[in-house]
């Protein structure tokens, strides 16, 4: 799936979070942790992103446990491919930035 357009920060971090199964609240906490509290996902934004990712088949919801109504989500193979592409794209951005800005500490 060649995806040339950039992912949003929220989507990139949600997909990274879902390499392990998580429910909504867990994703929100994990994204805050990963970004060092720079990025706080609001609940409405997170819900919209999860719905779209489910539709695209980049994530799937796990069959719910009987004692919990909270849905858990996990990344799919297609989703991992998207993350891989985005990683390469970001790497290119960083490397070109480094070359031109001239910082050697990357």
């Amino acid at each position, binding site marked *: 799936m060649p995806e040339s357009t950039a992912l949003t920060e929220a989507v990139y971090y949600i997909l990274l979070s879902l390499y392990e199964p998580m429910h909504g609240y867990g994703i929100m906490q994990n994204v805050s942790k990963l970004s060092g509290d720079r990025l706080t996902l609001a609940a409405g*934004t997170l819900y919209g992103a999860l719905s779209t990712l489910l539709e695209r088949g980049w994530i799937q919801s796990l069959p719910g446990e009987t004692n919990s109504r909270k849905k858990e989500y996990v990344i799919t193979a297609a989703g991992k491919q998207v993350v891989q592409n985005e990683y390469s794209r970001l790497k290119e951005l960083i490397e070109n930035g480094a070359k031109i800005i001239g910082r050697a500490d990357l």
Partner: protein
Amino acid sequence: MKHTVHKVFSIGAFEKEEQWLNQMAAKGMILTDVGFCKYVFEEGLPGKYIYRLELLNNLPSHAESIAYISFLEDMGIDHVGSYLRWVYFRRKASEGNFDLFSDIDSRIVHYKRITTLSSVLTLVLAILAVVYFGQAVSFFATHTSGFFQPFLGYGIIFTIVAALFPLVTRPVRKSLKALLKERWIRE
């Protein structure tokens, strides 16, 4: 003690409405229920809650809305009440700043939902106005007397109301335009 306040906010002034509800909450007047131009407050701890409003895609009783609202409830957000497709949420201020949307795209989606509703309502009312004006014309064509026919009046009323929606949603369209411009250069 309960206090009922009647106040009118237009569909385009939901951010003003939000602001007002938060000012009330800061004073210890906590919103507990809503209705048509009606707000029910209870006295409580000042500044305990932050309120946010959202226009949903469907009525709150719709399965999609139920799934969404229960997702928010799992995140510590209370569903205070709703009026038609407008839903009133709150979260404890102790949990930090509360927003329903955290990026430009999801804010754009919400603003667009509001402008779309406004356009649909304008269109429906404009069609009704045209129909009534048509009736009025054919009435005058077939009657030589009788000024007391209501069609012309209805036509005028519907025209005025139809024109009202684009007018009152100006703040939303302005915010939407600013965000769309911002998105050209930023996520």
